[in-house]
Each structure stands twice: as structure tokens, then as C-alpha cells.
């Protein structure tokens, strides 16, 4: 089998709300695949159908060749699952939790090693309730990895975590993938999808709005980059439009914004701008370049901004 996950025409409704409408996609072995979209877009419904926790109205799903609705138990042995909303008993220690969950599987990973890998070794005897949000999330990752799965599902893994904790969780997810495990995740953070995922499906209103690598999605957008800098009032910068790649120049007091694309020779926009400023001996400060990102892709695809 070529694909780890195959979804064909998945549909799921709750009463009158259509959560997922005619969704099809394939996930390759060994990639980090992300579903990104606002809350309520149908991400969690989709992932829970894949996990066999929800029954689809119609459509075909194969996860590791198994049908999640009929081969639920076999699937649970083979995959790792981190749920968006779940807890553990507060007064069990991290070690006790891992020992307990190991007993559910025939050939579990040695959990003390797993704890060390996840940076939780010294929390082994701490109660689950006493851990920080990031540490609790690490415990849930440990539980998702305890059966040495070929595929893990991570649902809104970093929601509610501070930026530092998010970054270290991202590193962990990459390590999991590098260890040969396929990762299927959902997130409503565009930056998370962009930095972490090998391929991204942008979901809106239960449908796939776009599916590709983050870089290709941004490239496909054909959006312009921006170079921003401050200059002295009075300096004439309109002639920047003559620089290769520049499409237009805006000025607002001291702040100048140059729009454009890489030059014909492939030089980034900022290169041409800086060369021109130096040649013309224009004094400038605070120069930076802004690339279009997934946020812009979403904006363009749906005509509205992502809301958290």
C-alpha cells in the first residue's frame, strides 16, 4: 500500500450542521501532514473519524489499510492518538500513568526511555495535576508513542501553550517523524503548519480549500514580498520602481514600503533595494523584508482573515 491514510468523499453532519463535506486526501508514509483551518472547520471531526472515535455518514477511510469503523481495536493497537480534549487522573504520577498505559499494548516501548526522550525523566514521580501545560502535553505525546506506532494523530497539540513550549513540542514532532513515524496533525495556527508540516491541507467549512507543501502553497499564491524601511523625509525614493522586480513603492512619512518579486536573476527583492539605496547614498534604517505566508494563502482562498 502506498498511502498510510486514504480518505475518499468523507462526509459527517451533526443535526443540520455539515462538519465535513466530501473530503478526500492521501497521506504518504513518513511525512508530517497537517490539516489547518479555523475552529469549526471540520478538522477534529475528520481526525476522529480516522481514529475510529466517530462514525462518518458516508465515504471511505483506510488507515494503515484498516477500516476505522469496523477494525477499531486493530487500529488502536497500531496507531498513537493524542486527543484535543482529554485529561488523566490528577493524582497519578507520570510514571504510574505510563506504566498503566503500557499494559494496554503487547509490545510497548520502554517507558522510562520514552520519558527521558521527552524531557520528563525528573517528573516521573510528580502528579499529573502538578505539571505545567507543556509538560502535560508531553505526557500525552508519550502516551501516543508508547505502542511504537507507525502513525500518530496529534489534534491541536500546542493550543494553550506558551511560545517556548510550542517550539520545543515542534522539535519533538520532527524527531518523531525522523524516527520513521508518520504524523497526522491538526492546528489552527498557520505558523505551526508552515514550519512543521511537510504537506498541508487548508480546510474551511468542511472542505479542502488547498493541499500542497507550505512553500508551494505560498508560491502558488503569486503574492508579492514587501521590503520596509525608514528614511529621512524628503529623500526621493520613487525611482526605486526602476529596480528589477519592484512593482510599486508606497510612502507614509518616513516609512517606505516596496512591493515586488525576486529579480529576473533570482536575487531577492531586498538585495536590489539595498544596492539601489547604497548607490543613491540614501540614508535608511530598520530595513526588513516580509514574505507572504500561509496566513496570506488562507486570506486569499477564503476571502477572510483566520481567527483564533
Amino acid at each position: 500500500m502506498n498511502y498510510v491514510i486514504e480518505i475518499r468523499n468523507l462526509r459527517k453532519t451533526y443535526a443540520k450542521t455539515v462538519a465535513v463535506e466530501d473530503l478526500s486526501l492521501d497521506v504518504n508514509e513518513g511525512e508530517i501532514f497537517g490539516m489547518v483551518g479555523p475552529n469549526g472547520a471540520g478538522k477534529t471531526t475528520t481526525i476522529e473519524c480516522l481514529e475510529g472515535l466517530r462514525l462518518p455518514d458516508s465515504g471511505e477511510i483506510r488507515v494503515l489499510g484498516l477500516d476505522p469503523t469496523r477494525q477499531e481495536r486493530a487500529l488502536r493497537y497500531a496507531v498513537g492518538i493524542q486527543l484535543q480534549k482529554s485529561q488523566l487522573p490528577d493524582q497519578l504520577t507520570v510514571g504510574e500513568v505510563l506504566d498503566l498505559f503500557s499494559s494496554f499494548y503487547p509490545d510497548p516501548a520502554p517507558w522510562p526511555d520514552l520519558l527521558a526522550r521527552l524531557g520528563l525523566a525528573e517528573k516521573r514521580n510528580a502528579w499529573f495535576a502538578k505539571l505545567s501545560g507543556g509538560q502535560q502535553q508531553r505526557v500525552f505525546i508519550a502516551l501516543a508513542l508508547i505502542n511504537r506506532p507507525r502513525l500518530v494523530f496529534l489534534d491541536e497539540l500546542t493550543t494553550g501553550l506558551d511560545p517556548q513550549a510550542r517550539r520545543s513540542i515542534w522539535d519533538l514532532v520532527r524527531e518523531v517523524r525522523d524516527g520513521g513515524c508518520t504524523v497526522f496533525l491538526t492546528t489552527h495556527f498557520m505558523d505551526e503548519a508552515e514550519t512543521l508540516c511537510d504537506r498541508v491541507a487548508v480546510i474551511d467549512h468542511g472542505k479542502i480549500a488547498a493541499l500542497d507543501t507550505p512553500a508551494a502553497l505560498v508560491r502558488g499564491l503569486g503574492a508579492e514580498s514587501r521590503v520596509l524601511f525608514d528614511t529621512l523625509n524628503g529623500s526621493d525614493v520613487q525611482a526605486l520602481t526602476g529596480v528589477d522586480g519592484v512593482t510599486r513603492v508606497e510612502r507614509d512619512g518616513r516609512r517606505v514600503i516596496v512591493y515586488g518579486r525576486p529579480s529576473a536573476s533570482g536575487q531577492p527583492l531586498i538585495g536590489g533595494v539595498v544596492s539601489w539605496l547604497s548607490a543613491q547614498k540614501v540614508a535608511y534604517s530598520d530595513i526588513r523584508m516580509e514574505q507572504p505566508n500561509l496566513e496570506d494563502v488562507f486570506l486569499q482562498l477564503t476571502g477572510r482573515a483566520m481567527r483564533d
Partner: protein
Amino acid sequence: MKSFWKLTAAECKLYFRFPIAAFFTLALLPMILLLLGAIFGNDPSPTFGGAGFLDTAVPGFIALVIAISAVMSLPMALTTYRERGILRRYRATPVSPAAVLGAQLVTQFAMTALGMVFLILIGKGLFHLKFAGNIASVMAAFTLGCLSFFSIGMVLAGVFPNTRAGTIIGNVILQPMIYLCGVTFPKEVMSEGMQQAIRFNPLTHVVTLMQGMWRGDAWAQHQTEVMILGVLLVVFGLIAVRVFRWE
């Protein structure tokens, strides 16, 4: 089987680490028994058919422990687990639902039995508690009482919408049960209507059976109780299977 025992061990640890449930099942009634024992003693009295106050109070109190475990501890434990997504977390593993629920039932049974042991130890150690029955019969009566009441508890676990409502509903059921079972207030002081209510209280039948086995009655004298508790077990057991929810 390994996961079942691990789950049971974890549940037992949690029971003692979260002292509120442990207090009601293991400490409250022994404390009350201690108090009443100090007031009334255990001298033989015609009121109790020649037995002492404690000789009837102890088996009655054991029935109360069963009711507290079944109506409060058990459904509240499962409702908390459901509310917090802990049951969901178990559902995402291959562990069988029977192991998760079985561990909870075995833990509650063990703790109820421990509550019984405390009551007996206080009675024996301080008040010369008399025992005229046979241990196997008492254990059988205790087990039957637990099974039928735990099936009620499993129905409540499915019905409680959340822990807050569960605490209220549980108390609304438990309090009248405890006051109208002939243990806390003697039947003789109650009106005709109240005595009628006592007969319809399932806990009364656990009390009667426990007291009977304690004083050495034959099972043949308690066919009614055994039948009622057996029917409760089957009926509520079947309802419990229908109303149980993971989330």
C-alpha cells in the same frame, strides 16, 4: 487481564489519594458508630430481641456503606472521568471497556468491604460485638447487596449529566434511603405512611438481609430480600448497559 489489574491498582491508589470519597466510605460511619456505641453501649436489651444495640447497628451500618459507595462514590467517580475526558482517553487505546469499568467496580467493592471491616473492628474491639451467623453467609449477603446496588450506581453514572448535578441528585437519592431503611431511625417510631416508604426502599432489604445473616438466620427466612435484590441487579444492570456513555 494485565491491564485490568493495573487499572484496579491505579484506582485503589487514587481512592486513597483523593480523601473525600475515602472519608465517606471508610471513616464517617465508623465515627458515628463510635459515638452511638459510647452513648448506647451494647448491653442485651428486649428492644433488639435480646441482642445489644450494636449487634443490630453494625450489620445495618454495613448496608449503609454499600449505599454510599453505590449511590455516591461509584457514579461520581465515573461521571468525573467522563466529564474530564479520561474515559475518552481510555477509549483511544485498545483497553477493553470491561476492564475500565470492572476496575472501578472491583475498587468500590474492595473499599466497601474495607469499610465493613472497620465497623466490625470497632464493634469487636470496643463494644463486645456479638456474631451468631456464619462468615460465608454474611459475605454472600454483602456481595449480593453490593452487586444489586452497584447496578443502580452504574445507571446513575449514565444518568448524571455532570459532577455538580451528580452530587445533588446523588444526595437527593441517598439521604431518604439512609433515613428510611430502619437503621438510623427505628421503624416503630414512624407513621404508617413512612413504614410503607421503608418497604419500598431497596436499601431496607439489604439491611434486613445483613442483620438476618449476622444473627444466624437461615437463607430460607430471607427469600423475599434475595429475590428483590436479584431482580434489582438484573433490571438495573440491563438499564446500565443501555444508558452508559463514554463522553
